């Protein structure tokens, strides 16, 4: 038996595991991953120490496969053993250290007894204002809030709840599907979000969605919203209000390119595709939003106001924006379809507001977005 034979066997089982995962057969997939991991582990006995790259890659692969098989302790033990041997090339040691961080987070959660919905969402922020493992607090808090808003909207949609225009999600939903912020391996700046499984299933009776679907739906919505695919998004969502809300929430998350270049959202397991939001995505979303709300107003009446959003009263249909250099704030009326979780995080932030200026000199609301 040679390394190659065992490695090929390992690949065969890993491939079967992926097929099983695609069919939603999680337990079966874990079984195949375990088989794959065992073959990969065995193959290590046949690699000469001089073959540094082969050795390093195979050790990394073994740990990853045990992790995917949910054999967390086994993965951890192998990682420690090989780090301790001090025979691996530098790239492999670095990779194994990152994997250990992920493994430890997973173990912490297992020990805590808190059950989570399948799939951790990893959010990675990159750009001028972001350093390795660090970023301005304000910026990250805003991104966390935006991801949370998208998750709650996804859950509400799956629960067939009427579209919410005002306030946050109901306390029942917040109690049942609680998003957790968890430590992520160091990257440019990364944080991870997991959704806690519903504690008491009967609360929503037959309406309750499969909790496992939340993350998968979250990715589908993000993916469609971030591209120019408004029609497909409308097909996926029960009504136009939901589709528009997802577009605007995704636009909030997308960077302008000034202080952040990209926001990448991906599944830790890599099963779902990742979504990379950039200033290009923001432009595409703006295009979708504009096309979904055609205006017959003459171009000469359309203006864009830049300033700080100081106050809002959506029940009374207005927002107030402070414009630098202007003595008095501008009141913009007829905010109509603006929803709390889109505009709420913009208070005291620099915003761009599209308006129509009436012949009486009043401003009528069209659209609002953050200006970094």
């Amino acid at each position, binding site marked *: 038996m040679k390394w190659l034979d065992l490695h090929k066997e390992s690949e065969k089982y890993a491939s079967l595991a992926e097929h099983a995962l695609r069919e939603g057969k999680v337990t079966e997939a874990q079984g195949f991953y375990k088989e794959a991991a065992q073959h990969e582990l065995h193959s290590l006995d046949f690699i000469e120490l001089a073959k540094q790259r082969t050795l390093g890659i195979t050790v990394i692969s073994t740990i990853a496969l045990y992790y995917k098989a949910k054999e967390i302790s086994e993965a951890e033990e192998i990682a420690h053993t090989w780090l301790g041997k001090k025979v691996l*090339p530098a790239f492999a040691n670095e*990779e194994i250290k990152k994997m250990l961080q992920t493994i430890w987070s997973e173990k912490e959660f297992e020990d805590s007894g808190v059950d989570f919905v399948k799939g951790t969402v990893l959010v990675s922020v990159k750009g001028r204002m972001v350093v390795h493992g660090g970023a301005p607090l304000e910026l990250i808090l805003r991104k966390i809030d935006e991801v949370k808003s998208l998750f709650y909207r996804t859950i509400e949609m799956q629960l067939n709840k009427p579209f919410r225009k005002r306030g946050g999600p109901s306390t029942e939903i917040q109690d049942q599907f609680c998003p957790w912020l968890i430590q992520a391996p160091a990257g440019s700046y990364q944080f991870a979000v997991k959704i806690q499984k519903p504690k008491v299933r009967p609360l929503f009776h037959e309406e309750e969605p499969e909790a496992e679907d939340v993350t998968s739906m979250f990715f589908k919505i993000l993916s469609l919203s971030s591209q120019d695919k408004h029609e497909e998004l409308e097909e996926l969502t029960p009504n136009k209000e939901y589709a528009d809300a997802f577009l605007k929430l995704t636009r909030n998350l997308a960077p302008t390119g000034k202080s952040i270049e990209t926001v990448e959202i991906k599944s830790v397991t890599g099963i779902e595709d990742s979504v990379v939001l950039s200033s290009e995505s923001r432009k595409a979303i703006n295009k979708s939003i504009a096309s979904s709300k055609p205006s017959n107003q003459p171009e000469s009446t359309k203006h864009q106001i830049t300033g700080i959003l100081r106050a809002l009263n959506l029940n009374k249909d207005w927002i107030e924006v402070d414009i630098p250099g202007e003595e008095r704030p501008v009141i913009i009326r007829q905010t109509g379809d603006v929803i709390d979780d889109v505009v709420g995080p913009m208070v005291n932030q620099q915003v761009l507001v599209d308006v129509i200026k009436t012949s009486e000199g009043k401003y009528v609301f069209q659209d609002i977005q953050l200006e970094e």
Partner: protein
Amino acid sequence: MGAWANNSDATRDGAYACALAGVELTLDLYAVRRAETLTGADYYLSNREDSGEDFEKQFRLEVSGTDMENGEVQRRLRLKLQQLHKGTSNLPGIAAVVGFKTKEIMIQKVDMST
């Protein structure tokens, strides 16, 4: 593509297929195995002369796919190249980005010694 219920899977798998065909045609490199990591699958490539019995002379392929405009294809290629440069692997790398809307495949090699 229509056979795939999940649009993300279709984009990803379509990108793998196009990228692998692209590197074979342009660089005469062939996929010899998948990379098993926690962050998604890439491929290892080698040339015809390589015995394929180990990873010592292989290339790591990083693939991305998008159905957005050309600007997004170029941006993704830059990102992939940055990833390869910053990556801890000392294997020589190749980044490939497939643009389905623009009908193009952008491929670039990264010399890890630079």
